[in-house]
């Protein structure tokens, strides 16, 4: 009898301890979540406030009369450097640079991974090791050599223009940025795809060979359709990195028409004349962050999806 009672109290005590642990864990999680979300919250509420409210009110308070005015102004009217036509042009600049860069680096990475796992050649580990090494090269050390290369590409473009009347994209800052990001991203995309294809059943490739499919047919019909999870991972990774890049953007396209979003945002915020329009700055920053968020929300669910089910014995 006493044994039953004592075990009952023990159970109750351990229940209490579990409860306490839960509270601590969730409390800490909530605390850090709030700390992390705070800046976003401030940005968001500020972007919907008028300048008067910002100057006289509390930073954390909700806007008393929400207005889209700052967003409209940031998109279409605010001054970037000396031109005052909003950030919309630079937004498109970024898209024009990011989309080709992401697509090209992803496709090349997939091809590399395919060759490095399914069409092995002598020295394939060395090649892969060197490509991996590319992941560890810091941005800064690439800046000067890349500038030299881009400079000579630009001169070649001028030569082409003189000869044919057309530059074929050589020396174009957007094209330059695409090139830089493709080269820099190749190490990462290759790593992603190689590791994914390493576990990809080789018998599928053999079966396709027996079926008469060639190198690219196997890639397009067998490998790519079964690579959705890793494609999504790579695209999200590359998109976020390239969209958010500031260093290459400011170094190779830091001035003029083809300046990407990140540099333009910097210029909006750093404008030193007149009143600092916090609401417009915040709206511009939100707009700049929007595409990466959107990519995450749309593609993120494929992160966890296992699409290989049924390929081989299951």
């Amino acid at each position, binding site marked *: 009898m006493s044994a039953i009672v004592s075990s009952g109290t023990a159970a109750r005590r351990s229940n209490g301890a579990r409860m306490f642990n839960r509270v601590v864990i969730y409390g800490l999680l909530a605390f850090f979540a709030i700390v992390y979300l705070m800046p976003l919250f401030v940005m968001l509420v500020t972007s919907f406030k008028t300048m008067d409210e910002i100057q006289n009110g509390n930073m954390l308070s909700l806007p008393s009369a929400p207005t889209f005015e700052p967003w409209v102004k940031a998109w279409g009217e605010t001054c970037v450097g000396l031109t005052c036509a909003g950030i919309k042009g630079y937004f498109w600049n970024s898209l024009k640079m990011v989309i080709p860069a992401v697509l090209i680096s992803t496709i090349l990475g997939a091809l590399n991974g395919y060759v490095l796992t399914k069409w092995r050649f002598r020295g394939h580990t060395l090649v892969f090791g060197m490509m991996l090494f590319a992941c560890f090269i810091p941005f800064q050390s690439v800046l000067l050599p890349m500038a030299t290369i881009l400079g000579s590409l630009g001169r070649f473009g001028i030569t082409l223009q003189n000869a044919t009347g057309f530059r074929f994209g050589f020396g174009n800052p957007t094209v330059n940025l695409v090139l830089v990001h493709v080269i820099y991203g190749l190490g990462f995309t290759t790593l992603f795809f190689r590791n994914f294809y390493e576990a990809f*059943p080789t018998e599928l490739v053999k079966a396709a060979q*027996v079926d008469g*499919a060639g190198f690219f047919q196997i890639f397009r019909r067998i490998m790519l359709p079964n690579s959705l999870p890793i494609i999504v991972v790579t695209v999200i990774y590359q998109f976020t990195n390239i969209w958010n890049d500031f260093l290459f953007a400011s170094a190779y396209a830091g001035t003029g028409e083809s300046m990407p979003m990140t540099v333009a945002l910097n210029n909006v915020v750093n404008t030193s004349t007149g009143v600092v329009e916090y609401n417009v700055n915040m709206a511009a920053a939100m707009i700049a962050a929007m595409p990466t968020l959107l990519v995450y929300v749309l593609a993120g669910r494929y992160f966890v999806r296992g699409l290989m089910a049924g390929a081989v014995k299951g």
Partner: protein
Amino acid sequence: MAFLEISGLRKRFGSLEILKGIDLELEKGGFLVLVGPSGCGKSTLLNTIAGLETITEGTIRVDGRAIDDLHPSKRDIAMVFQSYALYPNMTVAGNISFGMEMRGVPVEERKKAIDKVAKVLQITHLLDRKPSQLSGGQRQRVAMGRALVRDPKLFLFDEPLSNLDAKLRVDMRIEIKRLHQATGTSIVYVTHDQIEAMTLATKIAVMRDGEVQQFGTPAEIYNNPKNLFVADFMGSPAMNLLTATIEGGGNDLHVSLLRPEAEPLRVPVPQIGGLAAYSGKQVIFGIRPEALTDPDGADRNAKSLFEGDCLIDVVEPAGSDTFAVTKLGGKEVVARLRADARIAPGQTARLAFNLDKAVFFDPQSQQRIG
């Protein structure tokens, strides 16, 4: 001339030799099974026939045409893989017709071919499904459908049944045999399961360490194993292989087998060429469990039967037969008795040795004597 001819085939990876001079032949419509323990090179050999691996030396001919330089798709072969290798992104119909699509067969013809194969394999109702929605047996059928639809000169099977459970494996084995009888296509089939090899093959090649140990019909392999490895590998339960001493000479040649708690058992042996030379020496005496049985169950047609008393150690009733374990020549020996044979462990029972089926091996060279 044989339909499939492999001669002097060698395969090296650097200094490592995987296949050490393979010579095989298969008649048209034959069923060749490559069997052996894992790592013996049987799958590599199959892959070289398929063209998925290059060869270092030798030739492979199918129907008189050397194919060893051709791309896999040009060899007129079809292959069923161990893991089935169904394309997960395509439907069953897509899987079956992918090869035809690659060869540019018109859509109408493809449809007809798919329907025909689906009917043969009874998978018509599955054509629109994806491989992930199929059971193991259904996937196996689709994989066979993909091979069948090509109507190839040669079918290659790479351990196609090893992923199935025991019951399904027997069903599919019968189905493959039926398919072979119906289509009459030549087949090369890799397995490590010697029962599959025995039941399916018209010719068996037993392989070990990249060499063919013996090549022949299932009956030859089973009854006349060339060496100790083949004798031991083929048959379930395995052949009893005992160390024994040959005694006597002339017409009175016999082997002496040690028994626990009794005199050695003196078993007279038939006149086998070369055996007399081993008089006084040790040999390996091989006898299959079914050649060692109760006197009533013994083969009446056997020319030389010998009966001897053996101490029964363990009795294993298996329903259809009863297996008895006894000790002879210092080793456990399995005898296969009729199901209702009256024996009990710990007692002495009379066993009949069918010496027509006995084989002898040299303990040093491990080769067959005679």
